[in-house]
């Protein structure tokens, strides 16, 4: 055995993820305040989410439905009776001095996701309210700041915390788990799944243990990963750090560590060993919530298509390659767009190529999202049809694409307006070809003496003279005949 030759211990990585997804409800979890992002500080607040004396929480049923919907998609059991508990600690961004969360009866329990052919068990998914945000003032960051300002717009926004079992064994698997989860909640329409804006937050519990060991090593909790890539990088860094510690005879301290994207390292936040006693107890302001099987069934019936289902359908129904299908699944807007466009054309492959190629490139170059443009699935499908029926060439299609995207004008109108309809009139094209031959006598001579590579030059000249409208097939055929002389 190779391992036996070295004294180096082989380690196994053990990862569990805690993912907070912000539920896309119109209003907060326990009051009627808006959840809109990016408004003026403390605009989305009321006495209830400010924790004023004398206020009471009223549960947002939509948030519960979203929680159940997500739980069903994650193969979870849904509780028949769920309840809310107070998690108590003092912090200036926590108005009541406690967070309303769920302790021992979460709304969803015991689910799983399949990642890289392995079942990753989900322990629970529970509802809770978000805290506010501190803005440190008087300096660039927390360090050196003279005071802090409290913004409570986010306080009370509903979150679903999805807790996995420590079943993942590599950073790649953890990243894929997070990406899969993101896709699912986006497909369900319950969360934006935006790591940068914080509508989805991933914390990773990471430990290592000698390969074959049954007991877990001491874990650290990694926070502040703002992209899927950084989840993987942070775990890789942490595994290396822990390996080095243990190999050098030191021990891993159980603590929270903050990922620093700039330096590519993690740093200790505070020791969990002096952790809070949260003094959970059932919130007496909220009665336990009974969830009827009929309610769950109604939600199940209304469940939209999930990513895995779309992946299979795109391949089976439209014959797309696994790769193409996976791109359309990954970028949900593209997939949705595709599904609408196929109502108007059966050239699935061409449609996919346009979406994944020129359109994606255009959006990227112009820093736009598909939904911010005026491109409609029908217009794209029409353009694909026009190319297929030789009404326009691919080159012309590429030419009109920006206008198709920006103006929303139908492709047939666009080519008409611009005079770009493909010309297949042989007598007209022949005229142009002859003129090109007359004007380029030297090249003609060279061609006829064997420089056949020049053929492309003649075609190019014709296309140029016709502003691209000449049917390339016709040009090719006629030019070849004329050059033969």
């Amino acid at each position: 055995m190779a391992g036996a030759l070295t004294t180096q211990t082989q380690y196994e990585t053990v990862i569990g993820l805690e993912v907070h997804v912000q539920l896309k409800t119109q209003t907060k979890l326990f009051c009627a305040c808006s959840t809109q992002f990016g408004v003026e500080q403390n605009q989305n607040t009321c006495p209830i989410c400010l924790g004023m004396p004398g206020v009471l929480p009223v549960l947002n049923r939509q948030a519960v439905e979203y929680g159940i919907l997500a739980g069903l998609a994650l193969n979870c059991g849904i509780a028949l009776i769920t309840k809310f508990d107070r998690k108590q600690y003092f912090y200036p961004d926590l108005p009541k001095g406690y967070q309303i969360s769920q302790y021992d009866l979460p709304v969803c329990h015991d689910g799983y996701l399949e990642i890289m052919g392995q079942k990753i068990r989900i322990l629970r998914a529970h509802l809770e309210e978000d805290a506010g945000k501190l803005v440190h003032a008087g300096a660039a960051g927390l360090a050196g700041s003279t005071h802090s300002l409290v913004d409570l717009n986010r306080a009370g926004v509903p979150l679903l915390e999805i807790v996995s079992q420590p079943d993942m064994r590599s950073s790649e698997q953890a990243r894929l788990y997070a990406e899969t989860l993101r896709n699912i909640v986006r497909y369900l329409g319950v969360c934006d799944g935006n790591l940068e804006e914080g509508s989805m937050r991933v914390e990773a519990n990471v430990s290592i243990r000698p390969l074959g060991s049954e007991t877990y090593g001491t874990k650290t909790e990694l926070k502040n990963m703002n992209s899927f890539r950084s989840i993987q990088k942070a775990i890789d860094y942490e595994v290396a750090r822990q390996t080095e510690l243990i190999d050098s005879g030191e021990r891993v301290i159980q603590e929270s560590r903050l990922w620093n994207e700039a330096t590519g390292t993690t740093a200790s936040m505070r020791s969990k060993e002096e952790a809070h006693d949260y003094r959970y107890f059932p919130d007496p302001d909220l009665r336990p919530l009974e969830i009827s099987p009929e309610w769950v069934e109604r939600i199940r019936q209304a469940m939209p298509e999930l990513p895995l289902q779309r992946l299979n359908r795109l391949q089976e129904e439209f014959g797309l390659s696994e790769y193409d299908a996976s791109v359309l699944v990954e970028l949900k807007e593209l997939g949705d767009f595709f599904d609408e466009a196929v109502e108007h054309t059966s050239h699935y492959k061409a449609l996919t190529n346009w979406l994944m190629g020129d359109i994606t490139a255009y959006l990227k170059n112009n820093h736009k999202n598909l939904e911010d443009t005026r491109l409609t699935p029908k217009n794209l499908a029409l353009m694909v049809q026009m190319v297929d029926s030789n009404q326009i060439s691919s080159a012309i299609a590429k030419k009109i694409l920006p206008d198709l995207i920006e103006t929303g004008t139908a492709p047939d109108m666009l080519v008409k307006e611009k005079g770009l309809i493909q010309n297949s009139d042989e007598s007209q094209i022949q005229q142009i070809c002859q003129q090109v031959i007359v004007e380029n006598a030297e090249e003609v001579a060279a061609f006829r003496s064997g420089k056949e590579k020049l053929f492309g030059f003649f075609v190019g000249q014709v296309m140029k003279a016709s502003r691209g409208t000449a049917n390339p097939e016709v040009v090719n055929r006629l030019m070849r005949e004329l050059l033969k002389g």
Partner: protein
Amino acid sequence: MNEQSQEGALALHQRIQAGELSALEVLDNTFATIEKLDPQIEAFNCLTKDFAYKTAEEVDKAIKAGQRLPLLAGVPLALKDNIHLKGVKTTCSSKILENYVAPFNATVTNKLCEHMIPVVGKTNLDEFAMGSSTENSAFRKTKNPWDLSRVPGGSSGGSAAAVASGQTFISLGSDTGGSVRQPAALCGTVGLKPTYGLVSRYGLVAFASSLDQISPFASNVQDIAAVLQVISGADPLDSTSLQNVPPMDYLASLDKPIEGLKVGYITELLEAGLQPDTKAAIESAMKTFESLGAKVEPVSLPNLRYAIASYYIIATAEASSNLARYDGVRYGSRLNADKDILQMYLSTRAQGFGDEVKRRIMLGTFSLSSGYYEAYYGKAQKVRQLITNDFKNAFNQFDLLLGPTSPTTAFKIGEKSSDPVEMYLSDIATIPVNLAGIPAISIPCGFDQQHLPIGLQLIGPHLSEAVLLQAASAFESKTSLKNLHPQTLASV
């Protein structure tokens, strides 16, 4: 004393409706009485004249326009200073909220507004409703109108004293472990704690959320029924308020006879610790009920002896959590603001809260702590269930239960304030009712040798307010113990 108060709130309301008295006159009279009496009694933390006069003007305008007034319109009411009236301070008699102005109305306050009931002021209480004598107020010591050297009971001592002294006709308090019934007993007024959830808690500053209930005081049973009629009802803003309760007319059934009513007297509450005069008055009350045709028999609730222990774990646990929000960050007083956050928290809470509040926060924090939860909070919840079951069993046999409201009549100011446990024991008869979430009423049933009023407590099953009021009304008619006000005050 206000002469109008001899007739009671409903009678006054009817005279306003009939045009015999204007709401403005009534209010002038009320404030004149308050000015005369309250320097002695100290029932009020503040007066709300602007609000009251505005409401009275509305009433008089409605009368001029020939409109039919809503129930109790024009009758001055005093509001415990832990219930919000928008734009007016809600201090909870605590330094930490000394300058806190309520940004919204409590649901009950909105109902008072709809009924054009003028709120004349906010009344004193034990800080955050924690106490049985109103001595724990950070601002003043309210006196018992029957003997100014004695406490009015608590925590709603201000609201009880305001009604007992005839300063207002009706008032609202909050009852968490007896905070309305006990001061009603000690002040010779009527106090009703409704079924948990019958009256919205929205806008009542929470002490112990699973026990708190806004509760009325009045000088007679009919007036109590009228106030309950006004303040009860489901509230979408309070998830614990009872939905689907059929609308009740609490006034309609008051005069019905109670012949054949089965009344159980709770043996545990008539045993040790009861003042002899109180015991005699309760026994006499039992005879009165028999004379009214009720069957009175003993009943035992064996788990009542665990009620105080259970209560002081549950109530303090909830209080420790409910009072965490007073951290100096968003509102209320803030001390050591120039120091770091921990110093600010510590100073604000150390100096903002009084001793009893701090004692309860510490007790509650301890009993919820990791490793102690099951032994304390978990067990207390189980005991609470046992007590609830005791009541259920008793109500299988009886329509109502009977006992004293308080083991003693009003005690001297300072007499018990150095011994918290002694003070806690004065709630022995009232606490079990809150734990079970059921309704109970305290009505005057006599006086002790020092002419201090004695309270009789009637307890009913879930949502039995109509029967409770009916029985209380029958007792009151028979004994004529109503609209009691100390005559000595007239000469003040």
